[in-house]
């Protein structure tokens, strides 16, 4: 019905068009339901197991027969021997996250100021080194990294994890800062320079305030990276007091008794902060990821 003849085609076209529209709508709705189920089943599973009282885990229920918040209470009060350091470990995760954010922002913004604003010669070499680090998968570097942390005397130390997270977050920070920095007119720097400002004054008074949106995007990214990362934290941290939450969570998997409901409750408590941060900073995160993840 794309190229209709003049006679009466408009009359025929209308109902056909309407039918097709409602068919498309129905198909979209069906697809939506499939996507919804596909997305929610594993999440439903985690919530369901967490709500099951101890002993009800090994049943064939599709929903918990006697839902209770007992598991969450056990987690919050550290009432199980796997969880005896839970809040301490939570603090460790937070410590690693905050330190990673601060160091990533400082190192990344200084480097991109030098490359992008002062335009140091051969600055592109640094950009390329950072780009290369960004595309190397972290897991491929884990084995030598672990040995090197021993050489540096940082084994079982939270700072070894912070070093790893900063190493993998900074390249991304440098790209975002450079991309975003292009939108800040260089004339501002020139004007300040004529007024006698030193590079460090330009950095603090002009560059950082104007870069605020990029700083927020990268900071969120670094925080989530450090909070969610598992492999390096697992390899580098071994004692109960130095562990972070994901490492402690994976410890449950070694248990024969398998307290799955406590584990899932712990997992939910661990997953809530990043999910909340994600939704709060969603717009900025997407923009940042699109820039860094796709445009480099």
């Amino acid at each position: 019905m794309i190229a209709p003849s003049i006679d009466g085609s408009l009359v025929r076209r209308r109902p056909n068009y309407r039918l097709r529209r409602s068919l498309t709508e129905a198909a979209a709705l069906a697809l939506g339901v499939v996507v919804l189920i596909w997305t929610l089943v594993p999440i439903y599973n985690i919530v369901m197991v967490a709500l099951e009282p101890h002993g009800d885990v090994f049943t064939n229920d599709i929903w918990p027969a006697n839902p209770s918040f007992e598991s969450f209470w056990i987690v919050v009060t550290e009432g199980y021997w796997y969880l005896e350091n839970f809040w301490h470990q939570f603090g460790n995760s937070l410590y690693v996250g905050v330190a990673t954010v601060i160091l990533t922002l400082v190192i990344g913004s200084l480097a991109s100021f030098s490359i992008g604003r002062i335009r140091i010669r051969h600055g592109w070499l640094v950009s390329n080194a950072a780009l290369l680090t960004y595309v190397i998968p972290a897991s491929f570097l884990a084995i030598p990294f672990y040995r090197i942390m021993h050489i540096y005397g940082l084994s079982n130390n939270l700072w070894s994890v912070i070093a790893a997270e900063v190493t993998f977050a900074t390249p991304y920070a440098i790209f975002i800062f450079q991309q975003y920095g292009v939108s800040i007119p260089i004339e501002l720097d020139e004007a300040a320079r004529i007024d006698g400002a030193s590079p460090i004054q330009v950095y603090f008074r002009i560059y950082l305030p104007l870069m605020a949106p990029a700083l927020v995007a990268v900071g969120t990214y670094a925080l989530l990276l450090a909070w969610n990362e598992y492999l390096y934290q697992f390899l580098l941290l071994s004692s109960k007091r130095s562990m972070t939450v994901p490492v402690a969570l994976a410890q449950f998997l070694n248990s024969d008794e398998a307290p799955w409901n406590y584990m899932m409750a712990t997992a939910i408590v661990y997953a809530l902060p990043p999910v909340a941060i994600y939704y709060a900073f969603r717009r900025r995160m997407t923009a940042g990821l699109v820039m860094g993840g796709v445009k480099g």
Partner: protein
Amino acid sequence: MDDAQVLRAGVLPGPSTSVRLRRRAWRGSLQGSEFTWAVAFLIPYAALFLAFVAYPVAYGLWLGHKPALYAELVSEPIYQRTVVNTVLYVGIGVNLKMFGALLLSGFFMRRRWWVRGLLLVYVLPWAMPALPAFVSIHWMLNGQWGLLNNILWGIFGIDGPGWLETSRWLALGSVIASHIWKWMPFWTVILLAGRMSIPQELYEAAEVDGATGLRRFLHVTFPLLANLYLICTLLSTIFTLGDFNSVYFVSGGGPALSTHVLATLGIRDAFEIGRPDLGVAAVMSALPLMVPLVILLMRKLRTTEVQL
């Protein structure tokens, strides 16, 4: 920092293709104190790079430099299976994920309140950390007590298999599905941003010319998204090659070490068997695939940057 605006430069050669300003605030060659400042600002990153990237890379290359290691590696049946798994995992996983993301990004373009709501739910797997998600899937796929088999039995009366315990192919398929579940939302969001940056006028013009549905996609949407799609696919291939969490937590390499990929086998060799050199060799054997990808990607990203 608007998504559409950011992407437009990469996707469309529009008015933003203007020549980038190559200008210094400090004209001419940097002198004296300015040069000192510039170098001083670079020192923290240079130190970080040397201490935590260059040194480990060099150390890794040194650990895995003996040819005998690779002979030993290749003669192992576990390694041979691992290579096949890695190729299947990356080949099937990346392509299904990216194609699904491409289609779903079109679906999420629909302007309906429930589609917008669904998008918020749909990104949840990406928003949550990998560990809880994969541990949940691991338990869900348990043959005896898992939710999936309970549903299959309770609703359809089918006695589901032990997804992770019985067969290598079922377990590998489960791992691939979990990977897609976790990462498709991320790429969907990126391709969605790419689609939104295509000017509406192009669609209107195409409609006047009679292109709708599939033809509109083939002749308008896809040519404009192709570059972005390619970059995303390359990036996703590299990331998937290095993906440790999906395999480690969903199948754990089981049953009987039959579903390892290079990333997990390297860690296993290094830390469970205590042969770091063998682990490094396993990881390094991915380099023939990695290096061309990285070169291609870096070139792509650099030309994209020039277009800005």
